[in-house]
């Protein structure tokens, strides 16, 4: 961090896990002054009380528009914030929007000091969405497995098949109809509900 002290960074994120991942990354990189805000009530006054140099906010957060207000000169705004990047940094904006995060510098902090923070932020956000995707996939795979088990049971009972035969029937139907086995299994469950 050199001779300059660590800038104070506020993370505004309603997802506690993602905020923790980001905070950990920042601390590992030597940014020791990191505060998380997960409560959106009176966001502006909380930020003024903290008086951060950098504010990071996730893009799923409607409160982002509240931060835009800090560009303004008005009674509600005590210390105007600067734009986080200039025209030459369009690539940074693109990368951060893609990752789902936005950063604001509060008056005074040098732009080049933001760049490593933003880069770190982007990689942590991307890592988080990858994690989330994997989790979602694992969840839906588990769901599929449950549905397939139940569909197999119905086929075994109604058509007198063995478990293997029931599975082969599901799989060949799915291939013929160009659908996932899970979808075919789900339609069997739906049909059997209807025919009860």
């Amino acid at each position: 961090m050199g001779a300059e002290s660590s800038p104070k960074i506020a993370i505004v994120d309603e997802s506690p896990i993602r905020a923790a991942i980001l905070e950990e990354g920042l601390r590992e990189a030597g940014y020791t002054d990191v505060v998380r805000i997960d409560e959106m009530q009176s966001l502006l006054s909380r930020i003024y009380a903290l008086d951060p140099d950098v504010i990071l906010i996730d893009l799923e957060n409607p409160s982002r528009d509240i931060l835009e207000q800090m560009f303004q000169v008005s009674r509600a705004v005590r210390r105007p914030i600067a734009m986080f990047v200039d025209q030459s940094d369009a690539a940074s904006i693109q990368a951060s929007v893609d990752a789902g995060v936005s950063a604001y510098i509060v008056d005074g902090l040098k732009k080049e000091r933001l760049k490593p923070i933003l880069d770190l932020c982007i990689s942590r956000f991307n890592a988080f969405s990858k994690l989330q995707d994997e989790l979602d996939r694992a969840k839906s795979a588990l769901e599929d497995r449950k549905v397939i088990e139940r569909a197999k049971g119905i086929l075994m009972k109604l058509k007198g098949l063995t478990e293997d035969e029931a599975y082969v029937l599901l799989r060949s139907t799915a291939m013929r109809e160009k659908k996932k086995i899970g979808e075919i299994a789900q339609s069997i469950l739906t049909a059997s509900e209807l025919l009860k």
Partner: protein
Amino acid sequence: MTAQLQIGFIPLIDAAALIVAVEKGFMRTEGLDVQLVREVSWSNVRDKLNIGLFDAAHILAPVPIASSLGLGHIKVPIVVPLTLNLNGNAITVSPALHAAMMHEIDGDPLDPMATARALSRVVAARRKNGGEPLTFGMTFPFSTHNYLLRLWMAAGPVDPDEDVRMVVLPPPFMVDSLASGQVDGFCVGAPWNSIAVDRGIGRILHFSSDIMQRAAEKVLAVRQQWAEKNSQTLASLVRAVFRAAEFTEVPDNRNEVARILARTDYIGVDASVILRTLEGRLKIAADGTIREDGRYMMLAREDASAPDPVQAAWLYAQMVRWRQTTLSLEALKAAQDVFRPELYDAAFGRIGEPRAPAKAIGSFAGPIFDPQNIEGYFAGLPAGGGRG
């Protein structure tokens, strides 16, 4: 050939024409395969449009001007080929503020001059008693809501930067903030005013049409570069949205439109609340008082869809008036060039035909706005009314 488009929107009733264009097949008829993407903040809509994640967007009328001038964020030239609606906002105040204003009022409560004067007296009394200044919510720094509130207050005179607090609040937070007393009033679009009234915590003081006869509210915005490269697709998009706007305004279609908009993937509020907005017949007080105004929200009627450069100039003048930027005639010209009636006309095969002059803005107070004489406009503003 089908063009695939991603269009961003915020769940508000004035996204109706876009939603109806998709749901009623107007987009498909024009060969457009549109995916509407619901967003949570205007900053997101702006950024995703500017960097090309969206091809087009439902956006606050001042934002494309701010982007084109590089105000508040990076500079990206944006153009407006169609206005999605004129008017459609309302000012809602808490029952306590309403009572205080009605105690002070001298004149017709529907007259914004009378209410602005009453507000000024309430503000003065609070100051004398050492009370906290009143706080008003609006949706974005570059929003009609911000400018309409300020225009109204300044007539009082109330200085919006000195005498009260103006705070940005995302529309879905507006009602809760009024209920909890964080704000005393707000200016927002539908359905949020009606929801505050239904919850018994707010009273609609004015429709925005009381303050201005014609105020561009949400627009369809695209990047200038995109418009140049995709002129046929743009023309198709303008036609599809315009036809959907006409469809939405046919009284017999309102029930169907309200049901579509009510879906949770669109606006997700009760269809009956949406219907009131489409009819311009709003419940303004918890006691059930109804007020009707044909100008409450205009989509296609009275040439509302045609982008009007005078509207763009007026919005730019408000940015100057409230110190979001400083006056330059070059920027004024650039702002006017954002609103493109010729792109709108071209979509309907009217190329090179002269346009009838747009109807007047019809502001309830202040000097008549003439973009040819913008210095005169500022000279005619009351003292303390901004730009100091």
